[in-house]
């Protein structure tokens, strides 16, 4: 069974904090991270967000680390290109592979480390949000924004159906696997296509049933949500502000630091 981060968010103690406060902290982290000019600030944001997720949010450390390492692969693949092809400056490292020259210069190395650290901090911020704020809470926030009603309605319905289909997909896949449906590449392609088309047809029927069910309960294109009132406490505002000031100070003083 795929573990969705939402499951952990529902039992996180940070769930009961004000959503706007969490969103502001995450948005702040994302924006400062992406606009930083040295790897120090993003790494610091990453560290503080991880600590907040694991200790304040009570996320299992092992799970957190495992999930964190997974998406880094893409970041590194992209960073390798920047490492060797981007920018100018003094040559640091160069070698030939099959006659192709690979030259890494100082600007490229700096850019690559900067990009990886930005990505890392951005991911930690996103994970903080994912592990502490269930989607249901975010819908209440979304409803308050001026996004088009149909867009929000659609998002909510999609969210509901993700779980239904994940369940169906997992049980079909399980059934296929124990019947050796994935024993080699060819049968995997067949099994996978069968799984997906069955899923599509099931979803279609579910969609029709859902329409009937909602229509007969007077659905008029607007679902009402329960929005729990969670006032921000003064201590939280002070802590958050101190954190912001601290990050901005680090940002200011480390802006010229680079690896090479």
């Amino acid at each position, binding site marked *: 069974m795929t573990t969705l*981060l939402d499951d952990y968010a529902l039992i996180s103690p940070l769930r009961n904090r004000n959503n706007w406060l969490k969103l502001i902290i995450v948005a702040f982290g*994302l924006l400062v991270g*992406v*606009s930083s000019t040295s790897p120090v600030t993003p790494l610091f944001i990453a560290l503080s967000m991880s600590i907040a997720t694991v200790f304040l949010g009570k996320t299992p450390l092992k799970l957190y680390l495992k*999930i964190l390492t997974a*998406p880094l692969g*893409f970041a590194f*693949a*992209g960073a390798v*290109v*920047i490492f060797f*092809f*981007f*920018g*100018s400056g003094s040559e640091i490292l160069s070698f030939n592979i099959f006659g192709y020259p690979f030259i890494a*210069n100082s*600007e490229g190395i700096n850019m690559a480390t900067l*990009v990886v650290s*930005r*990505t*890392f901090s*951005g*991911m930690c911020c*996103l*994970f903080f949000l*994912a592990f502490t704020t269930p*989607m249901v809470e975010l819908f209440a926030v979304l409803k308050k924004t001026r996004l088009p009603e*149909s*867009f929000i309605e*659609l998002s909510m*319905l*999609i*969210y*509901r*159906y*993700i779980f239904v*289909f994940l369940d169906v*997909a997992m049980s079909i*896949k399980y059934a296929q696997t124990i019947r050796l449906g994935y024993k080699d*590449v060819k049968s*995997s*392609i*067949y099994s*996978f*296509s*069968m*799984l*997906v*088309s069955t*899923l*599509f*047809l099931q*979803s*279609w029927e579910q*969609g*029709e049933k*859902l*329409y009937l069910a909602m*229509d007969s309960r007077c659905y008029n*294109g607007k679902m009402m949500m329960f929005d729990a009132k969670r006032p921000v406490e003064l201590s939280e505002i002070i802590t958050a502000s101190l954190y912001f000031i601290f990050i901005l100070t680090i940002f200011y003083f480390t802006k010229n630091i680079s690896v090479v």
Partner: protein
Amino acid sequence: MHIMEGFLPTPWWQLWFAISIPVIMFGIYKLNKMVEYKREILPLLAVAGAFIFVLSSLKLPSVTGSCSHPTGTGLGAILFGPAVTAVLSTIVLLYQAIFLAHGGLTTLGANVFAMGIIGPLVGYAIYKAGMKFNFNAYAVVFLAATFADWATYVATASQLSLAFPAETGGILGSFKAFAGIFAVTQVPLAIMEGAVTTLIFKYIVQLKSEALIKLNAISKEGVRKLKGVTA
């Protein structure tokens, strides 16, 4: 194939948002019109969106051994048209960013542009053109899904190379490098996705062709021809 959070530097992520947002707005406008006209379409679109999400969270057995997943946007474009697919992809990408930390929030605009706009547009164009000229429907679906995937990957590589031009050869030079690295997984993967999408299409035609007719994805004659029934 998503650009990770924080990967694009400052002028670029805003730029891609600026390009994507009008398209999404247009998609929402289209969506509203569709919903007004046929109210039962909203739940259907919702399950379609959930379908794309689940599809992309299922790992496709990949030849290279890397676990990559199908984007599903080719299929989405064929079934629902590119404008609505753009809206669905936006929601799916948002969920992937928040649930799975796949992609990101600042890079959402760039990812929507590559996966939700360019890919579906290319797939849709190929599908419509192929069906118009009466090519074999399965071959057309295969090409549409494969090229939708490749278009997404070329778009992502271009976005990255625009943001990080190479020292020698400029944008084109780094484009070659980025495209080269992604080609290792994306070229076979796109062909796999094409094959899988074709098979899915075949099963749907066999089991529930009326769904396709209702969505205007294929004509009645087309279905009859594919089923091999001569009436």
